[in-house]
């Protein structure tokens, strides 16, 4: 059973609000079920995580919960866990499905779903701000090559292509998941695309903070744009409350952590667990921003 057994959580940096809340929620739920949690943290360093996996295997836990620092670099380590016969829950970012044998359960967000919700939000925002179904938008993306960066943009573009062909992506820049870089990137996008930008999709709310700063500096009222962020992090919530940001996509770190904890507890208790458990991706606007607060536990 779960009670009294030892689980190792391998997770990423504490210097990220989402990650910190995820870890906190995981520990709360797991401890409540009597699981003894041991945490190993890496600062998004795949090599370090690989050796943490070795270390974790050496400690011979009842199960391992793993947030891959890099969803593809982790694959060889997954195989080692599999070989050691330790049950594995992957949380937050899923490696390629080719290797699905190596893990027992995946819980977490679907980046594609997240992007799709953002697309829906964008269309809704265009309607609400009376832009109709035509206009230029720009995207500020995360670190190139990371799955969220690829999948979120794809999700958004899929939905737009399907439901609102008139809304075109006129430019993309890399904001590196970083507010400062996002500020420069957005400033350049505003200059490049000119004054007829109607909406901006930032793949994370903290980057949206940068977009808003850049808009203000360029003399554009952010409230006049359809600004859609993602993650429902505290920056986004505040910006939605004061009306500068139109919407964000709820991806609750607390749920993310909880789902993983529940999955591992169920697994240890011998219950049947679904192979893939996705978080909901609710669209958050001013109207339902309290959902966000609740989801984040404020």
């Amino acid at each position, binding site marked *: 059973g779960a009670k009294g057994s030892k689980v190792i959580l391998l997770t990423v940096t504490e210097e990220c609000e989402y990650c910190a809340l995820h870890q906190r929620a995981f520990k709360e739920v797991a401890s409540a079920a009597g699981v003894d949690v041991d945490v190993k943290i890496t600062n998004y360093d795949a090599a370090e995580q*690989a050796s*943490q996996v070795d270390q974790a*295997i050496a400690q011979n836990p009842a199960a391992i919960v793993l947030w891959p620092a890099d969803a593809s670099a982790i*694959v060889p380590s997954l195989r080692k866990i599999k070989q050691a016969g330790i049950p594995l829950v992957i949380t937050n970012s899923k490696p390629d499905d080719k290797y699905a044998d190596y893990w027992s359960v995946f819980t977490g967000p679907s980046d594609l779903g997240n992007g799709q919700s953002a697309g829906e939000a964008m269309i809704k925002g265009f309607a609400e701000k009376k832009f109709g179904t035509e206009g230029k938008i720009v995207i500020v993306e995360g670190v190139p090559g990371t799955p969220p960066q690829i999948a979120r943009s794809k999700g958004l573009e899929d939905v737009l292509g399907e439901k609102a062909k008139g809304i075109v992506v006129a430019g993309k820049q890399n904001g590196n998941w970083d507010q400062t870089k996002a500020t420069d990137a957005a400033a350049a996008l505003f200059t490049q695309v000119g004054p007829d930008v109607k909406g901006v999709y930032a793949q994370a709310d903290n980057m949206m903070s940068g977009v808003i700063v850049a808009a203000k500096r360029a003399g554009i009222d952010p409230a006049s744009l359809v600004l859609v962020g993602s993650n429902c992090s505290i920056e986004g919530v505040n910006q939605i409350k004061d009306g500068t940001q139109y919407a964000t996509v709820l991806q609750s770190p607390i749920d993310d952590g909880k789902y993983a904890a529940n999955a591992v507890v169920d697994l240890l208790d011998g219950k049947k667990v679904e192979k893939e458990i996705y978080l909901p991706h609710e669209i958050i606007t001013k109207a339902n921003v309290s959902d966000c607060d609740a989801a984040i536990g404020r």
Partner: protein
Amino acid sequence: MSTATLLRIALLIALIIVFASWNPAFVSGRNIYALMQSFALLGLVALGLSLTMIAGEFDLSVGSMVAVGGLLTLVTGESNLAYGMCVAFAFAVAIGAANAFVVSRFNVSSLVVTVGSMMALSGFAFWLAGGKVISTDNFDPGFALDNPILTIFSWRSLITLAAFLLAGLFTRHTLMGRDIRVIGSKRLVAAASGAKVGLSLFIVFIISALCAAMAGSLLSMSLASAAATTGSNLMLQAVSAAIVGGVALSGGSGSPLHVLIGSLILTVMNNGLSLMGMGATGILFANGLVLMGIVLLDGQLGAWMSERFAASRARHSA
């Protein structure tokens, strides 16, 4: 062996004893294996970097070179990883030579030159990754490299240890090895006594880039993937390892043995703290404190303390 070296070995042993008594799992075979895996990466980078330090130079670009090495291996080695590895090594030789060329031809500080190449290489790494995740399905080389040997080693860590041995023999028993040290101490004297200053600089910068690329290449095989951000903090860790081991930034002093000890101290500390459940920032903090302690001891504080110590010993014996 000097007292400073013995003190560092004592520190290493003390750390091991402390961690082992805290958690016996620390000295389990599997954990030592894990520890050696981290060492395999850090040690190789630190070894290359420290050679440039001994020659009185500095190679800030090793961190980015690790990323480029890994990416090149996978990008060009899609069908044949060995070929990719060769490309990565050839590229490293070219970059090392370019660094050395600018340093020796224009007689500028390598700290400055390699700030530039660090940035440029890091950009190149992002360009290579090109918005894709670079990964391979060819897991076999990685598994072969990481397969435990004698419980605690793997080919990867044995390669790093062999590199240390080679570098140790090179610096101790070849003329070029001695000249590198002379160049680090007094370059004009080296030139006047017929040491091949330019050639030695080329050699150390090439070795440094090559070690970094090799570390990156082996890592990418072992992870079956490569990212542009890999190694972003390896450079700082590698300098720390060299300094902790007793290589002076001012050049001319230190040896691969020192770097070996320094790298082991850092890996043991990080592994042990992580075993105790400390987070990444906590470990960073601890690294900072140790490094700070060591620079303080190397500076005036240490001089003052050893003077005190000598004085009190003199009083006692009188």
